């Protein structure tokens, strides 16, 4: 059964070299991963490579939090206004070549009907850019280490512990764009390593930033990428 695609990818600047690694995040628990990715983006000053649009991207969500997608909770379509300008909601894909070749993915949560399609389109784009390994940044709210991990393969888990002292610590569902990206990347033969920064949930405002947790996560991804924080 096939349906018309609600997703389109606009390629803006294809890098001349293959980007073997990618770091991704999306708005989520206490914005731990999202803020860490913002810090990394600021640090590396990357070029905008591509944008992924979807007619299933609301600007006002029908669910709280935004990544808790449910059937029939379509949300409302619209544009994002910033400094008087307007733009469509989108996944933004950036790249850097120096000091390291890296792809940076700023995710956006679709409603229930677009989540898989958007994640699949983003994974295909990563494949075209040559990505072999994906790091996902997110938050977790359990007792444990300041940063714990999950991976697409056992060998990657072993590597994460040996090389960076990372251990599994979160068990359960990983919701939304970032979770699906990690799962689908694995299906496309990419290595996926998720880094979860420990935080405390604030149910009244689930995405309220936890800057301390983000900072710890940022330092860990910098250590892995060998970038000075």
């Amino acid at each position, binding site marked *: *059964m*096939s*349906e018309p695609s609600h997703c389109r990818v606009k390629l803006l600047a294809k890098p001349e070299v293959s980007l073997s690694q990618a770091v991704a995040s999306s708005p989520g628990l206490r914005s731990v991963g999202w803020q860490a990715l913002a810090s990394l983006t600021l640090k590396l000053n990357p070029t905008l490579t591509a944008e992924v649009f979807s007619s299933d991207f609301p600007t006002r969500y029908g669910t709280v939090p935004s*990544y808790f*997608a*449910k*059937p*029939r909770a379509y949300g409302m379509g619209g544009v994002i206004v910033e400094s008087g300008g307007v733009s469509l909601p989108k996944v933004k894909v950036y790249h850097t070549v120096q000091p390291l070749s890296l792809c940076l993915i700023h995710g956006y949560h679709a409603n*229930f*009907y677009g*989540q*898989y*399609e958007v994640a699949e389109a983003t994974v295909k784009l990563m494949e075209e850019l040559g990505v072999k390994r994906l790091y996902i940044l997110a938050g977790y709210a359990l007792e444990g280490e300041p940063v714990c*991990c*999950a*991976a*697409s*393969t*056992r060998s990657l*888990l072993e590597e994460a512990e040996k090389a960076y002292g990372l*251990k*599994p*610590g*979160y*068990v*359960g*569902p*990983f*919701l*939304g764009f970032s*979770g*699906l990206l*990690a*799962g*689908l990347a*694995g*299906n496309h033969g990419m290595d*996926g390593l*998720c880094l979860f920064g420990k935080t405390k949930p604030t149910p009244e405002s689930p995405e309220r930033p936890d800057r301390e947790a983000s900072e710890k996560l940022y330092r860990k991804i910098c250590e892995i990428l060998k970038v000075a924080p």
Partner: protein
Amino acid sequence: MKVRWRQVSTGSFENSRLIVGMPDVGLAGKQAVDYLVQELKPTLLFEAYSTHFPAQVIVTKEGLIELLKCELYGWRNPEGGGDLLLLTGNAQPLSPEGQYAFVRELLEKAEELNVKEVYSLSGYLVEFRPPEKEPSIYAVATSQELLAELKSKLGLSQLEKGSIEGVQGLVVGEAKVRGLKGVCLLAETPGYSTPSGRPIVDAKASKALLKVLTQILKVEVDLSGLERQAALTEEFMERVSQLEQQVLEQVLKVGRQPPKEKPYYV
């Protein structure tokens, strides 16, 4: 694409019976089919992915990331009494349109594999099930004759009124539309869960389902593994219940503390 089927292997099957066990209340039906897969060691034929599954992956205890998927297995009956197709999974589509699409495509696949009968297994939520009581099994069927046969031969209770939500219900309804025989067996379960709300497998309900199903199918399966699991679940739930009682007593004790100043009444 609402459903994507990935063919893993092929096989030919005769007079097949499709057994469906999806995530349900008490995970009774899912565990029953998972147990059959474990014991019969069938061949994995297809993996099914759906954009209407919950938008999430699962992080396992080992720290591995798993996409949500269903698996369709095939088992050749060495006794020749009809083969089995077994469907299990860690998710089912959430939306009605996703559930309908999934069920239709599943039955198309099953018909290609010569399915003749469809059996769906599920839990049936009850408020309380005494620990010493074996779960009752309720049945619904695509025809009154079939239902009468099940009731008379196996002493099953008839589900009088209500609905069976999800793929486990729809698959029997769609089977009827296609002219296939269909039965849904439902086992009483209190729908165990941890204090944080995570569902716990009700292996006792799964065992009760399989006891009936294996008689219908005339397939022998050693159920002792489920008995051990059921005992562990009962033990765990007993501990949880004791813990809850202790917490309740503590709360009541604090609530009953005498006030520091003696009240004065005129």
